[in-house]
């Protein structure tokens, strides 16, 4: 009377999903190694890594990523902390605001940035420094749903009020409470939020493309327009980068909460 070990219907769909994941991956990998006719080589990768423009855009995106992550943390950790401590009733409202980037398509948003700040009287896009400020603002907005979620989930698991009162009773000020008590207790949530934020910045095309900054996304798009094998190598590199950071979250948070954060629910 033993049940069959696995049911075929489910296994079929699981296998189909695995194939859907892996065939393009393998295809890309295979393709990226075939730059030299008739042999397997890493030439495409060598070309990519020796392209000064790649290094420049990679560097630029990495720096932008780090700045965006920092600013994002500095905005959202105190905000969520305050919401839990003082204004729990405002939390649903703030939550709705933070998911707005899901409702407004990125291209529309970037269009808005461009028209609001690019034209007279501000003309912020006319020099690189102010443009970069807009870039960072944009990145923070685009990754806001994930960052807010991650910190929100993390904050829920710690008893904010008790921690704060305990710290206050020992004479800590607000800055000390935030940096010595709240931040350390949220490190996993902050780390997972940061990694998604960073991955978003690295992969973002539209902001860099329309604000004309040398980010990785536009660089890749440009390579895709006039090369054949390098794009495949770039895709593999970018998979590796994104997945290393996202995989890290999965490892850190044991899969459970991060999945919710990833979809920004």
């Amino acid at each position, binding site marked *: 009377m033993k049940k069959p*070990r*696995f049911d075929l219907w*489910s*296994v*079929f*769909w*699981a296998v189909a*999903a*695995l194939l*859907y*994941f892996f*065939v*393009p991956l393998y*295809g890309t990998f295979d393709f*990226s190694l075939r730059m030299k006719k008739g042999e397997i080589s890493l030439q495409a990768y060598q070309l990519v890594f020796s392209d000064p423009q790649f290094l420049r855009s990679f560097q630029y995106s990495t720096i932008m990523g780090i700045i965006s992550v920092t600013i994002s943390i500095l*905005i*959202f950790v105190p905000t969520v*902390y305050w919401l839990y401590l*003082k*204004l729990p*009733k*405002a939390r*649903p*409202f*703030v*939550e709705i605001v933070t*998911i707005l980037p*899901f*409702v*407004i*398509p*990125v*291209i*529309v948003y*970037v269009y*808005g*940035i*461009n*028209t*609001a700040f690019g034209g007279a009287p501000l003309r912020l896009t006319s020099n690189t420094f102010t443009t970069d400020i807009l870039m960072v603002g944009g990145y*923070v907005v685009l990754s806001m749903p994930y960052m807010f979620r991650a910190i929100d989930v993390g904050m829920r698991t710690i008893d904010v009020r008790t921690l704060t009162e305990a710290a206050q009773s020992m004479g800590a000020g607000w800055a000390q409470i935030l940096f010595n008590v709240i931040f350390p207790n949220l490190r996993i949530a902050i780390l997972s939020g940061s990694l*998604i934020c960073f991955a978003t910045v690295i992969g973002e*095309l*539209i902001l860099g493309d*329309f604000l004309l900054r040398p980010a990785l*996304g536009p660089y*890749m*798009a440009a390579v*895709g327009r006039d090369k054949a094998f390098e*794009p*495949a190598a*770039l*895709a593999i590199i*970018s*998979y590796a980068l*994104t997945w290393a950071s996202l*995989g890290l979250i999965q490892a850190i948070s044991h899969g459970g909460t991060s999945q919710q954060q*990833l*979809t920004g*629910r």
Partner: protein
Amino acid sequence: MTQTIAQSAAVPAKRGVLESLTKSNWIGLVPFFAFIFFFLVLPSTNLLMRSFQDFDGNFTLANYAVMKNPYVIKAYSISLRVSVITSLVGGVFGFFVAYAITLGNTPRWMRNFLMTFSGLAANFGGVPLAFSYIATLGRTGFMTAVLKSICYTNAAGVQVCPFNPYDNGFNLYSIGGLVLAYTYFQFPLMVLTITPALEGLKKDWREASANLGASPFQYWRDVALPILWPSILGATLLLFGSAFGAYATAYALTGGSIYLITILISQQIRGDVLNNPYEGYALAVGMVIIMGITILAYTILQRQTARWLKS
């Protein structure tokens, strides 16, 4: 996402917000709202206001006449079509995969692996995804080569390769190809959003329905699907939104040859193809309106189909 949208429709605790804001402990939220004002409210309202202005800054509705432009209509309709198709294809596929890894009897490693991978793939899109598909299913791609090489010699002595996709009308740089590529992130997104709902199906419900004489089919039709329906709707909305706003994948895959609304807007930003920037603003606001209508429709639909959710 599902829940938050439902909340946004109801906007609960609104009075609570105002009440507590008057208590002067709103100071802690100033940095957040300042940031939101500059980087979200200002750009959006700016776009919105300009879409109602003429060159001299006077109020007008004329910009919205751009919606009658056949190119615009075409772009919107292609975008809607792609979004609906990919959210349905990705939704159905993702649903079955989620079923397989939650309720279905699949090997444990497969479940863990698919769950983790869905988390990764759902966040993957844009340019690299397009490159992957070109490398795999493009004219010289890996899979194309594999399929091409399946040949035999027929009775007349002619070599036939029946599986060459490009002989069978397939073209990666078409809407079909786009659907294929979008599905790569759409179905994992479905897996992630619907899995908690599937896990929330109580075993007792299935047993109770069997106990009352229902077949598995009757259980799914009368109990499981109606209970899952709000989550399915919400997840599909999320899929629709992610496809509707997608730009990078389509741009990198087809170089702009498929006239999605996002591509049209990008061309407008780059070079004012409409010859009227104000019409461009109306075009962009149109996208937000469509998202708004979709969310509204979702809310109404959910209220009607899930009356039992309210207590």
